[in-house]
């Protein structure tokens, strides 16, 4: 039986006007049933949800929130070379034995917040939260990951590149849970993650890129590149990947420096100007692909 716990925003009080509900189902079917009936907010590690609450309470009470705590659902656990479960934390991903193409994801995992955040925050939560600066997205775009979404009506799979639609918007319907990521077979090539920020730890990316290159002698035989924080949604740069085929290291550097990148639409914010992002983007890409 799911625990059904009516609660208030902060604590018990006879004056409660706004009520939160908190569900903690122990199986996926129960969870999907609750999702269908109450459309609660899924809760994994809480590292986005709790800071959101703090922000929402600055000027007064926040709106009510129904929570669906997924932490009791064993089926959502696990990390392997083909599947990352919804409850897999950054630490679990960083410490797992994974093929070399996962290196960028593992490097990103160790740069998301501090250990406290890595021990709790999940990779899927990072995707579902859909921040333009989400560090998990470029490494997973590189892997052509697919998101498995489940609802009481059934499951579907959708490419990560189709899943995140815009800043803070995904293709997930309010009844769905993202249950896992599925990853196809990968080239036996080490990938790399480059993150640009204004301080060493606990920093949100100004721009970040994931890249890999398979070399055939002195020439690139296969390249993959993805970049984040330079457009509302992180993007694979397929045009650049194609242009890099057959390039030597020096040629590749020139191509990365010059090729038009229509995928990018960097904005100015407190972390950097738009022009800076546009220039820095090429540099982090070069470092991710060619380093």
């Amino acid at each position, binding site marked *: 039986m799911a625990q059904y716990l009516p609660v208030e925003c*902060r*604590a018990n009080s006879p004056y409660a006007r706004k009520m939160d509900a908190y569900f903690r189902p122990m199986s996926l079917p129960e969870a999907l049933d609750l999702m269908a009936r109450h459309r609660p907010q899924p809760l994994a590690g*809480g590292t986005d949800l709790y800071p959101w609450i703090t922000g929402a309470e600055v000027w*007064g009470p926040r709106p009510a929130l129904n929570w669906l705590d997924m932490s009791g659902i064993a089926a959502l656990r696990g990390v392997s070379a083909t599947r990352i479960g919804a409850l897999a934390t950054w630490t679990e991903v960083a410490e797992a034995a994974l093929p070399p193409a996962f290196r960028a994801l593992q490097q990103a995992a160790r740069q998301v917040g501090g250990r*406290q955040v890595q021990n709790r925050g999940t990779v899927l939560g990072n995707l579902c939260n859909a921040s333009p600066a989400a560090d998990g997205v470029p490494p997973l775009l590189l892997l052509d990951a697919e998101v498995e979404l489940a609802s009481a009506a059934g499951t579907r799979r959708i490419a990560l590149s189709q899943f995140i639609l815009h800043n803070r918007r995904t293709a997930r319907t309010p009844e769905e849970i993202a249950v896992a990521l599925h990853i196809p077979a990968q080239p036996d090539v080490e990938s790399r993650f480059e993150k640009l920020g204004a301080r060493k730890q606990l920093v949100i990316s100004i721009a970040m890129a994931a890249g890999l290159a398979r070399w055939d002698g002195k020439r690139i035989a296969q390249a993959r590149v993805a970049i984040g924080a330079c457009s509302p949604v992180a993007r694979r740069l397929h045009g650049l990947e194609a242009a890099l085929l057959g390039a030597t290291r020096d040629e590749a550097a020139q191509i990365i420096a010059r090729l038009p990148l229509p995928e990018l639409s960097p904005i100015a914010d407190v972390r950097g100007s738009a022009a800076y992002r546009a220039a820095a983007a090429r540099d982090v890409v070069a470092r991710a692909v060619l380093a």
Partner: protein
Amino acid sequence: MNAMPPPPIALTVNGQTHALPLPPATRLSAALRDTLGLTGTKIGCDAGDCGACTVLLDGAQVCACMVPVAQAAGAQVTTVEGLAGTRWGQALAASFLHHGAAQCGICTPGMVMAAAELLARDATPDEAAVEAALGGVLCRCTGYRKITDAVLDAHRFLDTPPAPESGAVGARIPRLDGPAKLDGSERYGADAAPADALWLRPIRSPHAHARFTLPDIPQFLAANPGVEAVLTARDVPGRNGFGIYPHIKDQPVFAEHTVLYRGDCVAALVGTRDAVLRAEFPVAWVPLPALDVTAARADGAPLLHAHLPGNILTTGRVVSGTAAPAAHTARIAVQTSFVEHAYIEPEAGYAQRIGDVVEVFASTQAPYMDREEVAGVLGIPEDRVRIIPSACGGGFGGKLDVAVQPMLAVAAWLLNKPVRTIYARPESMLSSTKRHPASITAEAGCDAQGRLTHIHFDGDYDTGAYASWGPTVAGRVPVHASGPYRVPQVAAVARAVHTHNPPSGAFRGFGVPQAAIAQEALWDQLADAAGLDRLEFRVLNALRAGDTTATGQRVEHSVGLLACLEALRPHWQALRARAAAENARGGALRHGVGVACMWYGIGNTGMSNPSTMRLELTPDGALTFFNGAVDIGQGSTTVLHQIAAEALGLPVVVFAHVNGDTFLTPDAGKTSASRQTFVSGRAAFEAGRALRADILRRANAGDDAALSLEAGVLRVNGASLHLHETLRAEGRFDPPTVPLDENGQGIPYATYGFAAQIAALAVDTRLGTIKLYRIVAAHDVGRAINPTLLEGQIHGGIAQGIGLALMEEYIPGRTENLHDYLIPSMGDVPPIDTILIEDPEPLGPCGAKGVGEPALVATAPAIYSAIRDATGAVITRVPALPHRVLEALRRG
């Protein structure tokens, strides 16, 4: 959904299981603190950003503020209180104390919990492992280096209790108030309140400038049971205004009709915590145009305060000398940003009324000034206000202004019930004072040999909506605008300009760090023009004992700048050689080394700022130090004990301590302007000497007699001395100054701190990022009373200087949390070499003067000097965020 009581949650904390009837989404931190009373777990942000709330969940570190208590059920939770009893807990505590790794101590529980996770799997980690494990906890005081050392070293303290220390002047004794910071028992503003205290929630303006109408209050109260009162301007029994200066009480407790900055307070709800936090209080706002500095200074600009033409609060001026012909000149225009103090402890406290006395327990740097403000707003005499400072989780100038105190006092006074409040991080950031943003233009020259001829300095300092410490900044800046150098002609003007921005107040350096950025950049340009090495240029022009400053003051003693520069010279040469070698290899990384000097007048500018310290020795041998100087982490409690002990001739361990309670301790003045070691230190020295003289007279002993006090027995030269009455000795010191005239002539300070710092770094010329390799800091401190604590101050000041230089920019509405407002994290502070120069100050206690602010001033200019050395880029927009570094590079 029907309300039914949630089943209790079984939470196991430090080995004990509790059944807690809490809503499952309750933050674990709230459950620990509010329900179980385990207040050792600190709250700095409730958003994962500061790590102060770090606890172990089944051995893994997590932020308790982001864990729903439901998810902690069934796990083992370990807090600092639990860790304190373990082998590693004790080793960490001993190592932290030995290394001076806890200053204010508010981050310390989080640091040791993160360290405990690491040490459990690796007893002898390397530095990279420490950084990875502790990087999620922010510290605003220490600059992290000593924390890293303490963790690396912790294994050496396993099963070894610390040896007792005598604490003579010059000894590296651990801070006396340290143990409570390590085991979680220290009580900060949020950690104590009467059980029945009501909760106060301020209602603030989201607009920079607006007219407003409050809702109908009786109707609101009727609709919101549990809210007992809504306090507004009409309810303030005394004067509805506070402010630092006796004649400028311009900041209202509750604004009337119009708000002047985003964060201005218009009312407060008082009642049960749930009721006040959940109530919707609909204020009708009519936003009005908001002025920045340019708009505020424009002809015909509307006035923020009707009596201040041109929106100019104060103008400070120093004009002296006549210009000598200059062979080279340089000019610069610099724009700096608001800087947030970002103490990890948000403002918090409680007030209660006891008969006709009101008691306020809160985090503060200035209990006696708080007393004046509270008495003013209540309209009662000061002797009916008792300020009890909590432990202070960081101040840096920001807790010199009152925050929670006036409203809590008004509420407790009117309702006759205890009332508490704790600001959330965003509220702390948007309501509190900031470092002034400065728009500076400066021009200077030197002769063909490189000797300075003049400096002309003009600065507009954005003082925000209310005066706060604006006049202090405008007064201090011109005095310091020429730096610690011989400059024949000085013309320096600084204006504090009112705008609809947050009030700018006191922040480590009172405007001087901003000025130093401009002035030191000019020196680099002039040194190049004159063909001199940048360090030798400063040696050539350094102020020396016997020189006369721009204010006409002859500085006779303790002018240790030259010694600082000479101590730096070998480091300078070695680091320059290393940078040259690195650069010879080519590539996108360009290495550079920079140098900058500073001076800083200790104490108030041309104004009396006395301190009184008292010692009492009872017939049964109880020796008590009544010390009104609040220790905000900088270590004054320890240092003042060391001084008093030295003067008295007894070890520090025999002293009992009463600190900062305005009913018990004499007025020591505020903890600011780097004055406590110098001013209160001298007072403590005098108190110690007076008590010693009294004892020796009674024992009929000579000046060199040896005292001891053990088991309540006082001995003089081994013979016990029985006292028939309590001995009381007071020491008082007010540094001699002469107020400045209209040209800034006078003796603004009795003594100055001097320093020179080197920064060595690499600039990534493609991304504009900066990698600091090393800071070398030479500081003339007069006398090092406690070198460990001094180094801690210097490290912490440097870390804040790094933040000022490279990342900190408070933008109202945009960087109001510790996610978007960046302060240096552990990996941002490079290794620091500290060189203490002791050029004694005859007025100071045992020759000592202050260091709290001097630590910060030279760092940003040294970093910019190094960036220019590496790349030629002159930074004129502060902070030097990566995109600004690249823009400066393109400008060349």
